[in-house]
């Protein structure tokens, strides 16, 4: 199964793959645990769910997320946000509106901030997807994340992973943004707690420290 379902450039991937499988079969959402990409033995092992299989509704895809490859079956209408959160357990990207208005779902696609709610999972194939989880080095926060903590660029924290990704995207293309550039880069991310002034401080702090 490992070879079938993973591009396998990291050996640790097997475990995640299995966990993802257990979770999906446990959910009773069999459609994409059961596609033709999986071996017959696998399908037999999950016979109970196979009877409810609607393979026609799903397609096999591979997503490159935080440096790993994830192969899975999705309905073409599923958003990248849904797949990240509910299928892969990557819940840093948040649901705010699911219609491209708030930015709480912001991820990076090839280094550019994108709304994961407005991106279909099938559209993200072949792109480098990064979420806030991917900015961590083990249990150590990335620089932008550390600066958000230090400057208190948050209150409830719900918009925060999205703000962090927007800031990360900004600093990758512009390592020394001015205050106005920061404002514009962050203007696609709503914060109802209104932490903006502290968010700007956090982005400035991150820019200072990234340069070293």
């Amino acid at each position, binding site marked *: 199964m490992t070879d079938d379902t993973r591009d396998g450039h990291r050996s640790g991937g097997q475990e995640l793959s299995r966990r993802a499988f257990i979770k999906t079969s446990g959910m009773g959402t069999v459609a994409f645990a059961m596609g033709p990409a999986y071996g017959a033995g696998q399908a037999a092992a999950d016979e109970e769910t196979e009877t409810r299989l609607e393979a026609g509704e799903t397609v096999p895809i591979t997503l490159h997320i935080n440096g790993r490859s994830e192969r899975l079956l999705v309905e073409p209408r599923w958003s990248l946000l849904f797949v990240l*959160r509910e299928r892969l357990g990557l819940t840093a990207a948040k649901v705010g509106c699911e219609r491209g*208005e708030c930015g709480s779902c912001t991820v990076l696609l090839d280094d550019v901030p994108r709304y994961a709610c407005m991106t279909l999972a099938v559209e993200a194939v072949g792109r480098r997807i990064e979420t806030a989880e991917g900015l961590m080095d083990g249990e150590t926060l990335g620089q932008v994340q550390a600066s958000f903590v230090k400057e208190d660029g948050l209150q409830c924290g719900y918009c925060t992973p999205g703000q962090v990704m927007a800031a990360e995207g900004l600093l990758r293309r512009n390592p020394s943004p001015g205050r106005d550039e920061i404002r514009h880069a962050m203007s696609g991310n709503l914060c109802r707690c209104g932490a903006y002034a502290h968010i700007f401080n956090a982005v400035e702090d991150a820019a200072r420290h990234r340069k070293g």
Partner: protein
Amino acid sequence: MAQEKEGIEGQIPFTQAPDAGAEGEPEAWGERTRVVGERHPRVDGYERVSGAAVFPSDVVLPGMVYGAMLGSPHANARVKSIDTSAAEGMAGVYAVISRNTGDANPAWSYGGGHQGRLFEDHCRFEGEAVAAVAADTPYRAADALRAIVVEYEELPFVSDVAHALDEDAPGVHADGNLAGESEDGRGDVEQGFAAADVVLERNFRVGSQMQTPLEPHGCVASWDGDRLTVWESTQGVFAIQGELAEVLDMPLARVRVIGHYVGGAFGSKLRTDKYAVAAALMARRINRPVKLFLTREQTLLTQGNRPATLMTLKVGAKKDGTLTAIHFEGTGASGAYKAGGTSLLDWIAKDLYRCPNVRTHLKDVYINAQPARPFRAPGYVQGSWAMDQMMDELAAELAMDPVALRLKNIPDGSQARDDKPYTTDGLRRCIEEGAAAFGWQQARAAGKGKGVAGKGEGHVRRGVGMAAANWYVGDGGPPATVILRLYVDGTANLNMGASDIGTGTKTVMAMVVAEEFGMDPDAIQVEHADTATTQFATPSGGSKTVPTEAPTVRRACLAVKDQLMDMAATQLGRPRQEIRFAGDRLETTDGLETVAITDLDALKNQKVVVGIGERQPNPDDVSITPFAAQFCEVEVNTGTGEVRLLRMVGTNESGRVINRLTWDGQLVGGVTMGAGFAQTESRVLDGPTGKLCNKSWHDYKLPTALDVPDEVVSAPVMLNDEEANIVGAKGLGEPVTIPTGAAIANAVYDAVGVRMLDTPINPETLVARIDLQEGPQ
């Protein structure tokens, strides 16, 4: 530098635990403290920035399916029939419930004496629940909703607060549209107006503002036999537990509510709503956890608002600025059910500035729209919009400085609470210290109505404005219990049921513990917001969490310290009176012997010391009240009506500053929200249909990163309110947003001489008013 800090810290006395059985309050912290008052990053900052924090909407459980609600699309309609058969037969659909599923339609009350059902036959507002489904994906749940066929009989509706009481207005309820009426007052207003040199009267209209927190309202419900666990996005897990137990007719001990994180609330998540009941009922029927979060559109339709409000304010004053009379009339819309349409609406008018003769009259009305919910400083934000603009106009009329006029009318006590004396002179200090921090005199002299050099003379104009506020709920109080466990290695676990709604509650409490034990706040594990495992707390709201919980936490610390002193006395062979605290050590008062907390034999033996704190009642002969003042500078483009906020200074007297970092964050957030109230946020209900027009964030405009001032300065009044409680702190979350709207409106007036009496300050209206006054630009 480190040494210098050591030296300073060396002079700060450690607080001692009162002798066992001693009467009276423990000694207050001194002027200077070690941890308290510092800028400390959140103890849960890591979780909130990394994605590790599990918000209720992040919960994924084995076997979980996805719920969704169907709402009525009409402002007022009767449900004639519902056909759910197509939905029930769809692939992936697990449950469909509606009024047709009799065992899944329990009694439900919106409060205020209402008795209804989960799924009503008569849907009195757009979005009112009609059915719910659960399916294996949210997509299939949405498919199922679309397959439900509902036949409605549309009914006449009323959606405008101004017409709710018209003779011919359709009745939201059989007994008419007056939901409640109240009067208050003192003195003799007629005499007061007769004695005035100047009398002004104005009508104000405030649009309905919606809380719309970033995390939608919703929950995950999971059964284990007859035990229910709910992960709810809430401000108070115990309130939700009580509500669900009542609706589902279950013992409290069988309902567990967990709400470790909540993605914003602002008053809209003090109670739960029909979604949680539907999720629990469906989960029980299908023996699977159900995750049910509303769509953004549904949250705007059904999950709370600050009522649309009409106010008429008449004020009289002497030539020297002394107020002689205030007459306030207010009408606010509860919505389709009684929900506090005018709650606290007249408090600013009757309490903030000194005035012997006051009359207020409030009418709460029904309209065909969702029930209101408390929204950050309910009533006060609307009242301030009227009262503090009126003070500004009065100042202009009397040719007085607006600051001087307010300082002329500072009361010594709370006039709305029998003149009970305030514990501080906070209002005066906020106004004076804020004016100084802002440079009010210079800014007034320089700015007034003048064009801005380099921006086209006369085209873009600057102005400055200010407003002040108090908030009567900022005292906190019982009930509250916390438990502190001090471990054998000197670290601690704090068990407290209160939610941290983003205000930094957990961090503040950790700092209180750290202050008492001379430890790092990060050495404290905070366990909170779970009805099964943490201590009872009331919901976090009304700016009462810090004044409620912080003194309680301190009491728990003192209870631990008390036991440690006994342990040290035994170990060192000295009487208890000869033992004192010295940070993480105890020593004899002669300084000869000392023992580290972690070296106490008794602690090593028993592994843990447990201290319980209970919130004691407040003194009842004083008014424990936080105060605020805000000063702002705006730029008005007279060609487009655009108002840009340039800078804002916010001064707050909320007693002791515990965490300066999150304190400043509160101000920054309060100003942003207040700017939304004044400039962009207002619900629009369509005239012909009564339906919500701005049911998305595209159309309902929240302030963005481009709309907030370049400069927001938090300048707290540094004082410790020792009469308030044993930490000297009062509430902050609402006072930071109350005066913002009026301060902005006053600055607009200062810039262009136009007084905007309605929210939001609409650029088109503003430019039309400017043109009317000056002729087109």
